C-alpha cells in the first residue's frame, strides 16, 4: 500500500465524504430543508410568474435547487470542524489537503443530486418528461461537481465562524439566480445582462436542463457542456490550491 498514491487518497476522500454525509447532510433538519426548499421555490416560481409556462419554469427550478443544495453546507464545514478541533485531527492524518477537499466535494455532490432528483420528479409529475435523458443526467452530474467546487471555494477563507462563509455564499448565489435565465429567458435580456449571464455556470446548466426537457436551448448544447466542464475544472483546481494555502492559517 502506498498511502500517498492516488488510489489510497481517493479511498480516504471517500471516508471523509461518508463522515460528512453522516454528520452534516443526513440530519433531519438538513434533509427536511433540502426537500422543502425546492417545493417552496416551485410554488414561488409558479405563483409569481404566471406569464411563463411550466416548461420554462421547471428547468429553472432544477437549476436553482442543484445550486443551492450542492453549496448548502460545504462552505461552513471547515469553519465548524476548525472550531471543534476535528479539522486538526484530519490534518494530522495521512490525507492530503486535495483528498480532504475532494471528500467534502463528493458529499455535497451526492446531497445536491439527491435533492435535485425531487425537482425532476416534480417536473415528471407535471407531465414534463425529458426528451434527452442522457443530457439531463450528464448535465446534473457536471453541474453538481461545478457547484460543489464553488461551495468549497467559498470555504477557502480561513475562519472559525461558520456564518462568514454562509453569508458570502448567499451573497453570491442569489444574484446568480437573476442573471442565469431562471426568471427571464436569455433572449429577452439586454446585452449587458447577457454578458453577465455568460459568466454564470448556472446559465449553462439551466440551458442544458431546458434542452433536456423541451428541446429548446440558447447556447449550443456542446458549448454548454464544454463551458460547464471547464468552469468545473478551473474551480476544482482553484479550490484545492487555495485550501492548501489557507489550511495552515486555520490551525
Amino acid at each position: 500500500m502506498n498511502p500517498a498514491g492516488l488510489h489510497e487518497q481517493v479511498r480516504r476522500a471517500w471516508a471523509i465524504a461518508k463522515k460528512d454525509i453522516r454528520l452534516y447532510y443526513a440530519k433531519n433538519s438538513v434533509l427536511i430543508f433540502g426537500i422543502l426548499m425546492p417545493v417552496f421555490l416551485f410554488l414561488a416560481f409558479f405563483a409569481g410568474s404566471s406569464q411563463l409556462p411550466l416548461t420554462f419554469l421547471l428547468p429553472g427550478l432544477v437549476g436553482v435547487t442543484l445550486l443551492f443544495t450542492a453549496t448548502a453546507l460545504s462552505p461552513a464545514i471547515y469553519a465548524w470542524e476548525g472550531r471543534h478541533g476535528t479539522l486538526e485531527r484530519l490534518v494530522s492524518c495521512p490525507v492530503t489537503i486535495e483528498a480532504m477537499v475532494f471528500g467534502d466535494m463528493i458529499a455535497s455532490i451526492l446531497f445536491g443530486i439527491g435533492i435535485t432528483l425531487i425537482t425532476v420528479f416534480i417536473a415528471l409529475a407535471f407531465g414534463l418528461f425529458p426528451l434527452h435523458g442522457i443530457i439531463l443526467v450528464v448535465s446534473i452530474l457536471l453541474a453538481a461537481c461545478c457547484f460543489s467546487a464553488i461551495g468549497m471555494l467559498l470555504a477557502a477563507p480561513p475562519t472559525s465562524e461558520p456564518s462568514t462563509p454562509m453569508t458570502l455564499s448567499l451573497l453570491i448565489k442569489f444574484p446568480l439566480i437573476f442573471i442565469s435565465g431562471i426568471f427571464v429567458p436569455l433572449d429577452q435580456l439586454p446585452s449587458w445582462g447577457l454578458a453577465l449571464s455568460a459568466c454564470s455556470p448556472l446559465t449553462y446548466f439551466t440551458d442544458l436542463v431546458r434542452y433536456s426537457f423541451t428541446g429548446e436551448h440558447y447556447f449550443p448544447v456542446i458549448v454548454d457542456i464544454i463551458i460547464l466542464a471547464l468552469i468545473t475544472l478551473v474551480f476544482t483546481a482553484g479550490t484545492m490550491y487555495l485550501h492548501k494555502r489557507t489550511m495552515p492559517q486555520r490551525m
Partner: protein
Amino acid sequence: MTPVIHASDLTKVFGTSTAVDHVSFDVQEGEIFGFLGPNGAGKTTTTRMLNGVIPPDAGTAIILGHDIRSEPVLAKQGFGVVPETSNAYVDLTAWQNLMLMGELYGLARARAVERSSDLLGMLGLLEKKDQKVQAYSKGMKQRLILAMALIHEPELLFLDEPTSGLDVQSTHMILSLLRDLNQHGTTIFLTTHNMEEANQLCHRVGIIRAGKIVAIDAPEKLKTAIDRVHRIEVSFDQGVSGDALAELSGVTSAERTGDKWQITTQDKDATIRALVTFTEQHGTAIVTLNTLAPTLDEAFLLLTQGERP
C-alpha cells in the same frame, strides 16, 4: 542509527513573536521522550510542526525518515497523535470514530474492526462503543482519542498532556498502556506539565523555555546536574559525633535532624563509602541511608525560572 524524530533548527514566528526559535533535537527508536516547559514556552507549537499540522518558518523535521513538509503523508502514516483537548467527532459513536480513523489510515475493514474491538476492550470502552461521544466523560474521551491514535499500530506516538485533568482510573490506565506500548517498541513523544509523570515514564526529557531548548538529558542526570552539592540522610543504631561525621571524605556539613543526620557532600559516592568505613571503625550500624537528590520539579523550575515569553 537513524532517529525516529530529527528536528533541526525548527522555527515558528507568529507576528513579531518567535514562538519556537531554532529548536533541534533527536528522539531515538524505542525512547519515551518527555517535552517539558512552562505555558507558552513553545511545546505545543513544536509538536504541531512535528505533526505536520502547521508548517515551520525555518528548519526541518524528519519523522520516521520522511520530511514532514515534502512527504507529509508517508510521515503521518507512521505516527499517531493524542492532542491535549479531545477532538473526536462528538456526534459519532466511539465505534464510528474508530472506523473513520481506520479508513483514513488505509486499514482493511476487517483489520479496523479487530483493532477497534481490541483497543476499546483494553481501554474499558467496549460496552459504550455505540454511544455518541458527546455523552462521554473527559476520561472516556481521552481514552477514545488514544484508541484512535493507536488504530493503525503506529511506530511513533505523540501525546500532548494525555492525563491532564483526568481521574485516577483513566490516568493509571493510560500510563500503563503507554509503558506497555513502549515495551513493545513504540517510540513515545510526550508533552507534559506533570513532572512526576515525566520522571516515571521518560528515558530522556527536553526542556523548552521561551522557544529555546535549555536542556536535554535523562531525568536523573538532569536532576543531579542542577545541584552539585548532594544530600545524604543517614541514621545509626547508636549516637555518633557530628564532628566525626563532618571530617569524613567529601562531607561539607553534618546536621542532626531528629534521630537522623543530614549530610551535605560534593562526592556522594566517596561519602557513602566513608560512612560504611566509619560504622566499622566505631562499632555502629547504619539503620537507614537515603540520598536526597533534587526532584525533577526543582530541576525544571531552576531551568525555566525567570524567563517567560
